């Protein structure tokens, strides 16, 4: 090969690899992203059953029922409520009034089956997406509502123990 041909072959190869990579990224950005919705947005946008989405909002006060490894709770944005069913272990800090983000899809009954409840290991943490959607609905309060952990149906036994210790001294 001549000098020119060599250089041409190399540049052609580089171009081909880059074009393929760019194409791949574009296709994946179109197909593989997950939208975040509040309960109201799910209703407005008529999200199809089975589409993977993220649902975010506040855990409705005392809305939890636990049976074995499955927990049912309600996520609210102040306007609309969405019943959620989750099988697995809830994050340690899960409780009423807390902001949550869950991953999953709608089922045929209009409920949400969560495959994952995202955790953050900070007591005062409120997911950014939830803050944004609550602000949009005018439901945003800087100070989270006070929840009596000892009687809250949503908080874990650990949180209850902590609440009792705090009361005791």
């Amino acid at each position, binding site marked *: 090969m001549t000098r020119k041909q060599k250089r041409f072959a190399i540049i052609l190869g580089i171009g081909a690899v*880059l074009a393929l990579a760019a194409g*791949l990224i574009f296709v994946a950005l179109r197909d*593989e992203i997950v939208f975040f919705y509040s309960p109201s947005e799910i209703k407005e946008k008529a999200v199809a059953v089975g589409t993977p989405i993220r649902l975010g909002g506040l855990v409705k006060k005392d809305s939890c029922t636990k049976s074995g490894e499955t927990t049912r709770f309600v996520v609210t944005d102040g306007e609309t409520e969405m019943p959620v069913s989750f099988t697995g272990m809830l994050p340690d*800090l899960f409780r009423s009034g807390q902001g949550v983000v869950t991953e999953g899809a709608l089922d045929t009954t209009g409920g949400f089956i969560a495959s994952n409840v995202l955790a953050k290991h900070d007591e005062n943490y409120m997911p950014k997406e939830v803050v944004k959607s609550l602000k949009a609905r005018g439901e945003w309060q800087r100070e989270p509502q006070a929840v009596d952990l000892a009687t809250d149906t949503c908080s874990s036994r650990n949180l209850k123990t902590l609440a009792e210790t705090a009361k005791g001294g």
Partner: protein
Amino acid sequence: MGIELGHFAFSLAFALATVSALAGLLLWRRAALTPYLQQASIIQFLLVGAAFASLIQAFIVSDFSLKLAKEHSFSAQPLLFKITAVWGNHEGSMVLWVLILVIMGAAVAAFGRNLPRDLLSLVLAIQSLIAAAFLGFTLFTSNPFLRLDPAPFEGADLNPILQDIGLAIHPPLLYAGYVGFSVCFSFAAAALISGRLDAAWARWVRPWTLLSWTFLTLGIAMGSYWAYYELGWGGWWFWDPVENASFMPWLAGTALLHSALVMEKRSALKIWTVFLAIITFSLSLLGTFMVRSGILTSVHAFATDPTRGVVILILLSLFIGGAFALFAARVGTLRAGGLFAPISREGALILNNLLLASSAAAVLVGTLYPLILDALTGETISVGAPFFNLTFGAIMAPLLVVLPLGPFLSWKRADFLGAAQRLAWAAGLALFFAILAFALTGASVSLAPLGLLLGFWVALGALAELADRAHLFRTTIMTSLRRLIGLPKSAWSSALAHFGLGVSVIGIVAATAWQAEEITTLAPGSSVTIDGYTVDFGGVTQQQGPNYAADVASFTITAPDGGKRIANPERRAYTASGMPTTEAAIETYGFSQLYLQLGEPQTDGKSVVRIWYKPFVTLIWIGTLFMAAAGFLSLSNRRLRVGAPRPARTRVATE
């Protein structure tokens, strides 16, 4: 008193770094200045070291008049966690970040005696400039030396999730990697300013790249293992923005490591190598910004503050913008290097760089896309594992396919068929193992056997390179052995690193494709069986730790071979901070692990339990240990030492 001295030393370091940077940038042509800059770099290190020591001392004696100690420490914390609490928060971790930065600067000053003086002056000046920027940032936006009056009686406790040996290991390693790339950046900028950009430059930069890359590899691997056992989700990589922030510099750094090799040996790829050196540190800075500004939602907790984020963003754009302006101004003056055919070692390394750079770009796009879309359309989206698995996987697969061929190709022009022939037995063996695994496990048709094939191919290909160089089976065993021992360290280290990568790939594929998971509610005395392992639940008892109360479960695991072990996962409640945590119990069998997580104990004595069986999962981290060992081995190579005398111009390649 110690804290005030520390504060003073830190401020002095800021002043000194500023003066060094200005003096060095203005007067770098004067050789007389160089020794002063060297001394200044070492003094910066001593000053920041003293400041860091003063913080550690205050934390050890639980001096809660120090605001930082009050907010992040607790008198009943074990000593190790009192020390690590210093960097278990934003302010303190910035001090650690800066400390490692000035250590790197001091190391350049100490080991760079044989560098040309003008280049050394410039490198130290730019290193001081970066140090000044981040010393200033720490002092003015995140001062860790503030006092409280009156002094509180007790501290608020370190975030319980951070009360772990992982905090002692992971951040220092990760920062050493991140910040180490600042030296490559400084060398690149210095080369562009002075116009000294040749094969010797690549030889000077390579040890720093290697050092940073090795630390970053260890840091990421440690962080991944820490998240795996501490977060209790059974996962070891979540494609979380904070993880991506550390992974992008690693990908770019890996590319830099390989392109500097081409530049050193063949004087080609100069422009690209300098570009990569700038990009790698830019990605480190971007990572620092993303982690600390809280602009992206991450699972890995860290105190974040958007106003500080803005300052880092400004510093980020100044350094990156400045470097690229310099790059653009100088790029025209660089001459193209040696010629080569498409099928050659150079060609293979270019492909390596292309694919690594593309994968870094894919990760970057995926990480920043939610921000861009939010800014443009207001829609909130998340780009999760499916995006990254598809793009990253599809870009990495061809890299793994061609990787074993690279070391068999000669420089300039190579015999592809010959290389393929010499690798035939490795390919055959890899195919055999993959088919065997497929036949034994009967996995449903998926990409797993293909992934396994790639892993074996890379690992065996690396061994094939060593075997080939030792003339194994072509001469007597003793001669081969002697040849093997006599191989240059560079051959050993590249084979070891590639072998480690193959091992990691095998671990990733096996643990992902063949893991078993069980979530169930168990009564005391009942049991559950997962992949041949029987887990008996013995019940839950309450126990008291040094600064927490815990529900501790007792499980007896019976392995398929009949051996019995006790596992005790816990749920803890930390009284000082009011934080609950879940501590998983992990039992290792060979390379595989059984991972037990305790759910909430219920009133009737039953408990929810989540169990994973993760086959060959430890190979993921063992592979990275091989890579890091390869890095250190390569660093011990005399030829790479910065302090080594400059070889004569007529030096011929010895390989």
